[in-house]
């Protein structure tokens, strides 16, 4: 353990523990998932950074959206995100989740993913190198330190708006709302 960080550990042990044990859900969204196997195996070895891929969303707290999101994929992405435990962090990988990328005029691709689920950070590029994932992870550490990686708080607060956008894209959703959606807008909701 780094001696310089002992003060941080004593100050906020839960935050430090979250930082160094990011469990990434292995969700193959698009073409970007091809970068993930070298990242988690011997060549780049993501475990140096405390990132481990896990099988189910219940065990994960880091969600990498790797590549373009079709309308049909958006549904499992939302369900996966809602199943993850808090604190949970989302990183959009590649230029397609940012604004559609090369699918900017496609009839069946979601253009801006942050309209549907909160995103804590973006990795731009098509494709980003595997090193970019580690840069993103170190940036995410900084964000967690400064309490800025709080997409899940945003999701809880603006859940009405997120749910409305999800319904605009997918039609009627066949699962109940994660947080109560009341008819009267409260002060902390949109």
């Amino acid at each position, binding site marked *: 353990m780094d001696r310089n960080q002992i003060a941080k550990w004593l100050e906020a042990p839960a935050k430090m523990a979250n930082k160094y044990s990011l469990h990434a859900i292995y969700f193959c969204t698009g073409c970007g998932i091809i970068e993930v196997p070298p990242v988690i195996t011997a060549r780049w070895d993501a475990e140096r950074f405390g990132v481990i891929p896990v099988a189910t969303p219940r065990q994960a707290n880091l969600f990498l959206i790797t590549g373009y999101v*079709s*309308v*049909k994929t958006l*549904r499992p992405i939302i369900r996966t995100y809602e199943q993850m435990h808090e604190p949970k962090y989302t990183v959009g990988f590649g230029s397609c989740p940012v604004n*559609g990328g090369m699918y*900017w*005029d*496609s*009839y*069946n691709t*979601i*253009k*801006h993913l*942050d*309209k549907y689920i*909160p995103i804590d950070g973006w990795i731009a590029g098509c494709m980003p190198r595997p090193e970019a994932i580690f840069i993103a992870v170190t940036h995410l550490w900084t964000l967690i330190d400064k309490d800025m990686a709080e997409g899940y708080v*945003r999701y809880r*607060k*603006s859940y009405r*708006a*997120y749910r409305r*956008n999800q319904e*605009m*894209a*997918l*039609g009627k959703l066949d699962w109940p709302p994660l947080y109560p959606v009341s008819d009267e807008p409260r002060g902390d909701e*949109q």
Partner: protein
Amino acid sequence: MSKSLREELESTFKNIQVSILEDSRMAVTAETHSVLAILRFLKDAGFDHLSLISAVDWIEDNVFELCFILTSYMQNDDEYTDRQKLHIILKTRIPREQPQVKTAIGLFPNAEPYEREIHELFGIDFEGHPRLTPLLLERDYEIPPFRKDFDTRKYVEEVFNSIPPIEIKNK
């Protein structure tokens, strides 16, 4: 070998154009009502694998073109003759106003997902298909999205870009 197949086809069916594109590729253009008969003929002639059904929208000619691509399985080396190296493209044109053809499932059962996909993306109706339900798409489209008169940019502008962004409020 392929020359004799060409002669056989031309002598059996009327209104058919056969052209050899390369040594290993032959294109057959036929009318819609004789497509199933030609498929049956080619299947009996040894082309027992339907690799693909695809569709093209020729909007200037006001037709859809369906392409059936047939090859044959090469089971043993001694059966690997010139005839079995051949790819056959069977093309037929159907009017855009009434896009209806008979399904090829009876001959090639693997035509089912291809026909479903073409029905979904081009709106071509396959008579006798057991389930023409949505396969890939999640939303309803007024015009099937692979038709040339489907304006993708207008659609994106109307559907995806009209969804408002989430406002991030400062604490």
